[in-house]
């Protein structure tokens, strides 16, 4: 009980803040953005994940040829998904063919080799296939994040800001969408839109995935709406739109970013699940989930066909989750750094003369 009280007091003091409030020393002279950045970079796992994800995206995106309209940017990898080179027999264990040539052992064998991820059963380069699949999966992930984020923020803001009838009707819509078993609808519609391409699948999944975010944004708006600075803006003559977008939304942005990151982490898994079940991305398009399902039967003879896409799915989802975690900590004002024994011993005493 006393512990609770103490925490409350500590924050209260910071808020009421005398200039001498010690707790404020850490944020002296910094803007909100700088504080968040500083806290984020203190979270080692999140920073690591950010580095890994960024390099992964660069790696995946530059590996193969990119076509944007008439512009063609060549990739650095020698095979394409259409090439069907001969299956490799050398050095493969137990009489299998097309095994990976990637070797991380230092020495003579170190390097990518001709087919680092191996070949599939007809000889296509699996590295090219996985790169292509990862590309699609990443695209789907970002589109879902953007669509769900946009709808969630708009619906949540409207419901939270206007309240009453607007709130009631929008929230019933949210209830309705949440009760619909998304995976089945997605399966049905995925079957239909699968033929038109993965972009439409992503759009559709985005349209189903915004409900949690909308609730969160609504809750944020409801509490921020009662803050005195909102009244101050109203007295100053600000319109509803200005209050919602200039005064309330920026204060909810932290929560929104965190929620969207977590939606994206979930999205990549949903896409995988749907494609695996055969309702998501359909051949000749590829995605990581589709790769796993296509080569499901060769799992015993060619296990790498399963491992590589799996590894990519896990790394991407994990990285996005870690980044979301780091952001959540960074945006939480109550988050304090843990102090180790070493920190305690190394710390210098602030000159008492000044105090």
């Amino acid at each position: 009980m006393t512990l609770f009280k103490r925490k409350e007091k500590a924050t209260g003091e910071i808020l009421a803040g005398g200039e001498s409030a010690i707790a404020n020393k850490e944020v002296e002279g910094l803007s909100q953005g700088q504080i968040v950045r500083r806290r984020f970079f203190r979270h080692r796992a999140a920073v690591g994940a950010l580095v890994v994800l960024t390099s992964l995206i660069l790696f995946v995106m530059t590996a193969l040829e990119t076509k944007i309209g008439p512009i063609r940017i060549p990739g650095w990898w020698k095979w394409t998904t259409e090439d069907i080179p001969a299956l490799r027999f050398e050095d493969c264990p137990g009489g299998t063919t097309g095994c990976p040539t990637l070797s991380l052992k230092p020495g003579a064998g170190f390097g990518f080799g001709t087919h680092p991820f191996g070949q599939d059963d007809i000889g296509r380069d699996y590295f090219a296939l996985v790169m292509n699949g990862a590309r699609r999966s990443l695209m789907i992930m970002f589109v879902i994040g953007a669509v769900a984020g946009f709808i969630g923020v708009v619906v949540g803001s409207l419901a939270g800001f206007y309240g009453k009838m607007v709130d009631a009707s929008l929230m019933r819509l949210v209830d309705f969408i949440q009760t619909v078993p998304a995976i089945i609808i997605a399966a049905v519609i995925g079957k239909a839109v699968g033929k038109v391409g993965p972009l439409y699948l992503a759009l559709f999944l985005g349209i189903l995935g915004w409900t949690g975010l909308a609730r969160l944004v609504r809750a944020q708006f409801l509490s921020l709406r009662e803050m005195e600075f909102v009244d101050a803006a109203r007295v100053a003559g600000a319109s509803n739109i200005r209050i919602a977008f200039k005064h309330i939304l920026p204060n909810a942005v932290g929560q929104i970013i965190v929620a969207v990151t977590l939606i994206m982490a979930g999205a990549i898994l949903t896409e995988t699940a749907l494609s695996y079940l055969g309702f998501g991305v359909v051949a000749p398009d590829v995605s990581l989930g589709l790769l796993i399902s296509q080569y499901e039967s060769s799992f015993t003879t060619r296990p790498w066909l399963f491992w590589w896409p799996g590894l990519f799915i896990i790394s991407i989802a994990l990285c996005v989750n870690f980044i979301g975690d780091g952001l959540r900590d960074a945006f939480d004002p109550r988050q304090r750094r843990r102090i180790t024994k070493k920190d305690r011993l190394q710390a210098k005493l602030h000159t008492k003369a000044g105090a």
Partner: protein
Amino acid sequence: MSKENILEISDFNVDFWVDGVWYPAVIDMNLGLAAGKVTAIVGESGSGKSTTALGLMSLLASNARMEGSVKVKGEEMINAKASVLRQFRGKEVAYIFQEPMTALNPLYTIGFQIVETLRSHFDMGPKEAQARALELITMVDIPNPEQSILKYPHQLSGGQRQRAMIAQALACDPALLVADEPTTALDVTVQAEILDLMRGLKDKLNSAILLITHDMGVVADMADDILVMKDGVTVEHGTSDQIFSNPKHPYTQQLLGSVPKLGSTKKRTLPYSESAKPAPVLKLSDVTIEYPKRGRQPAFTAVKNFNLEIYPGEIVGLVGESGSGKTTVGRASIGLLPVKGGSIEIVGKEIAGANSKQLSDIRQHTGIVFQDPASSLNPRLPIGESIGEPLFLAKLAKGADLARKVEELLDQVELPRSYRNRYPHELSGGQRQRVGIARALALTPDLLIADEPTSALDVSVQARFLELLQELQGKLNFACLFISHDLAVVDILCHRIAVMQDGLLVEAGDRDLILKNPKNDYTKRLISAVPVPDPKEQKIRREARLALKK
């Protein structure tokens, strides 16, 4: 110091770790406290008084370190084993905190919580503990003890909750009671009762009390000894009479000088003559304001048939206790709340039933300063933008012209121009409140509504703020509705005073008339409950008040 001291603090230091540096919060403190005595630690926010209180029993966060010695009944508490500390906490040293709502667990009845304290320290059966809890609740004067013991914290009023907290704190007959701002969250009349209760219990149980407060009136009412702290350093330590009548340290003198004292300001003349009143800036006639029903909660009438007129150039104080509807009146006067009945006119224009276009026109004549400096500024906007917003939205200034006007406004409230690009969290409470005034005055309003603008500020900051407000009012000559629960502040500032109780206007009139010669019983009680920062005078007032109660 003598052996009988319950609490013996010597060379006590507390430091906080922030980014690799230890910042001192309490420096070389020495204090001895005997049974049956009250020592008050006073100081402004950030002076280390609460840190001291929590540090005694090692209740501070993990980024704090403590040095020196704290002895309770001769036993060392610094670096003591957790089991020893646990034995002392609650049993020998009990705490009363500021906010009883958060200090009591909302999931359990108050009876349960007292029984829990009892049974964790004594070998006691449930029945026995229940009986003792009932006894304690009776002792702290909670009405209907048998029923109250089964109530949850939210079912009690603020004062009753604080009483329940005290009952829990006293459960084990503690030798030392640490009261950290025990009455700050309470209304003055309730505060007076709680202080009476604490005084009575101290005499009965012979406990020592360490009282932590920023309210010099409470100190004058309770303390035998006073310790004045500033930035962690004990600047002065002496008996109550010594400190109040003959403060030695300049900081103590300054602190006592900035405490507003009821009935000490000279006569103030109205800026207009009674016979030829100008047209009122704000005219509330027969105003009724209702909070509409929500679900099963019935509609609540917050203000009933309220009449008040404010003329150009005068400051009218609106006082009352929490829940009396004074803030509601303020907010309705600026069109932030709909009016159920009656009319509100600002410079001759009707607010009740005005559409949003008309409202925004009327609002150009008004400004409002809010209570809470922490939430009244948008944390994501630099303060220059907050101040300039009314000008920008009224399309009175843009670009470089706006920047120049914002700088002028900052000059007016005596903040450096460079603060334009700072964010609210970089400013202290007093500075934020100045920003609030600058924003309210941006459109040079005819009417300023100030809703408890000083209640979150330290006394010295408050004194400066009130001076500034008076200066500005003298210069710009706006009319002002000053809402406050603090009669002493209203006394300093206002020409006229209106007193509210339960949504009704009970009395209104000239400042001197209301403060010196109140007609209404409630006003009388309110005025007599205000503690005066002078031990001798406060003693007389206390006796007078107790006589009035009988």
